């Protein structure tokens, strides 16, 4: 029986008929084919991710006048401006509050809904569809609809008025504006996290729950000590995605509040947009974008590092 030779040995077989065939060895053909396959994605990554990223960092160290087209090196001036900008404390406060509120409410509500809809009851499919449907609705259409509902003389206050309650001026109140934006965002995306939790809950082995029950664990204890650890990888995933998403919420702010009143809903990503595109200050806007990128990166890395402490992997 002929022994099968490794690819490198076959490729270097001396009796190749021509020079070009000698160059196109099997190994080179494999490498070339591989590169061709990854080339579209690589080109896309280079053109639409890496290049803009480098350009933003470069731009953050320059001042540029869009109209005149003049760009000058500015050193760390744009970063210094961010530190001393009177709007920075309000923007930081809005960003942190929005992020915390969104993550806590979104994850909590998604888990609660998933647990409720994991029961074997009639009609759960209808509710699952109902809660998931906003995820597939256009974000802008969803937000514009809520914008009408949340006006002072809008649908929600009209309903409240009908039952004798004077609702707040949702999008103009100092505190209600941020709450409104959070609620609109939670209802938009809670269905996605709910579905992920639902899948995780259905993956929890019944044998473990039965064993815990035999050992005398009540429903809450079973949930806390068995279910939560078993679904912790999903909790990690949803937390990372929700935190990252909460720092990139833009359309809702633009449509509902434009960052107002008095910067109460002006989160970092919207502040970046205002500086770069409204004020035509691309240098300063780029510095804000770099800081935002760094925050998201650090938060994601921290969560990744901490996962070993609270995420349970069966393997």
């Amino acid at each position, binding site marked *: 029986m002929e022994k099968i030779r490794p690819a490198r040995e076959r490729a270097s077989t001396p009796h190749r008929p021509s020079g070009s065939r000698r160059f196109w060895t099997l190994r080179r053909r494999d490498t070339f084919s591989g590169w061709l396959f990854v080339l579209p994605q690589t080109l896309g990554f280079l053109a639409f991710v890496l290049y803009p990223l480098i350009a933003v960092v470069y731009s953050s160290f320059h001042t540029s006048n*869009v109209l005149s087209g003049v760009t000058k090196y500015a050193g760390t001036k744009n970063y210094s401006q961010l530190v001393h900008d009177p709007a920075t404390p309000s923007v930081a406060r809005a960003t942190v509050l929005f992020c915390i509120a969104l993550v806590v409410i979104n994850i909590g509500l998604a888990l609660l809904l998933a647990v409720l809809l994991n029961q074997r009851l009639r009609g759960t499919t209808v509710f699952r569809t109902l809660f998931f449907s906003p995820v597939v609705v256009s974000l802008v259409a969803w937000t514009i609809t809520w914008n009408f509902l949340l*006006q002072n003389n809008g649908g929600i206050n009209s309903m409240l008025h009908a039952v004798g309650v004077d609702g707040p001026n949702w999008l103009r109140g100092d505190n209600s504006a941020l709450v409104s934006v959070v609620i609109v965002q939670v209802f938009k995306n809670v269905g996605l996290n709910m579905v992920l939790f639902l899948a995780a809950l259905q993956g929890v082995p019944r044998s473990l729950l039965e064993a815990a029950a035999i050992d005398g664990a009540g429903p809450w204890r079973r949930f806390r000590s068995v279910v939560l650890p078993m679904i912790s990888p999903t909790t990690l995933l949803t937390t990372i995605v929700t935190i990252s998403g909460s720092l990139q919420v833009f359309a809702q702010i633009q449509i509902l509040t*434009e960052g107002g*009143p008095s910067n109460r809903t*002006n989160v970092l990503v919207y502040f970046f947009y205002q500086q770069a595109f409204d004020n*035509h200050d691309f240098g300063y806007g780029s510095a804000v974008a770099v800081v935002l990128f760094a925050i998201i990166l650090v938060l994601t890395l921290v969560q990744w590092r901490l996962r070993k402490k609270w995420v349970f992997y069966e393997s």
Partner: protein
Amino acid sequence: MRTRRLRLASLALSAVSLLVVPLAGCSNGSGSGDSNVSLRMTVWSNDTSQTALFNSIAADYRKTHPDIASISFDYLPIDNYTTALTTQIAGSNPPDMAWVLERDAPDFVSSGALTDLGPTLKKTAGYQYDDLAPAATKLWTQGGDLYAYPFSTSPFGMFYNKDLLAKAGVTRTPDQLVADHQWTWQNAEKMAAQVAAHTDKQGLVIRDWDYKTWIELAALWRGWGADAWSADGKTCEFDSPKMQQAMTFLHDAIFKDKALPGPGETADFFAGESALTITQISRATLLADHPFTWGIVPLPAGPAGASQVIGQAGIGVMTKGSHKQQAADFVAYFTDAANSAKLARYFPPARDSQLTTATLAKANPMFTPQQLQNVVIDGIKTGSVLPSHQNSAKIANLVQNALDPMWKSGANVGSVLAGVCKAIAPALSQ
């Protein structure tokens, strides 16, 4: 095996070409050359009748200019117009021509973003350059050069719904008050409050303000002789006594008398939801299918007397455009005497010879000669343009945020206005 590999390689190459070919199509090369020029003008109007007029003027121009393959009017919503325009410029995709708002004029003119139109307009046969009113071109002129043609010089006026006023028991209409020299802000406010109190509609709407676009409030505070900043743009005047009186009047009108819809409340005059509205006369096209009888009067007089306010819009040729001369030639045609008369139907012209009741009446059948004289001709002659500044975009955001605390009951108007000056002082001095 080899065939399979080749097939796979071909597949990968096809995928690459799918990505690369569209990218190549995105390049801004002017491969068509100057004999096949496509011109693009950004506009903030999507009114179909206005667009039809623009297209008909462009079609006529192309008949005598075969080198122009197409002329398009690219609509950008007014809310984010300047943002979208500057984004196109920053993205190396500037239009050949652009409408520019009066508030952005100093920024665009001083930055060199627009080319000097003067030489082209002057050399165009029959253009009658000297017919352009100096008051209209002032904002767009620097060092004697004209950087945009002020195609619309549109005064603000007060539209009113006669039916709704009558329903609210208002016995003297704004026109009668004008005739009796009693058309004051106080009387207008009382009228609006009466409508709000006696009907389920709103009183007075300052259109486009919506508690955000504060520059529209100039229509009110100019009646008190107040302004946002000094003429040289260096000193904030929001905290002046005149401004405090004007803003206190407005605050009381909103929160005490309910004469204006409060924050977060919407009402559209043109849909019959309010009795009075302040807006530019170019919005009159919205009344084409009006379900009510209406009138229009000049802005009311304040303690400083009658003070009219003008909104302006210019057409400029972008310095970074690919076909500057062709674009300038088209602007010369678009705004010559004949086409200016056509455009006057929607946009009050900047030509002295056309600012007559007879000329405007031909183009504006919706208005009576008296309305055109009182609101348009007198408004343009006596009015002043909305505030503008070289740093207008940044200042607009800062003022909006600083004014927000005022839009609630019990706000300390003086303190808020002092805060506005504190917020914008650095930007004014830049």
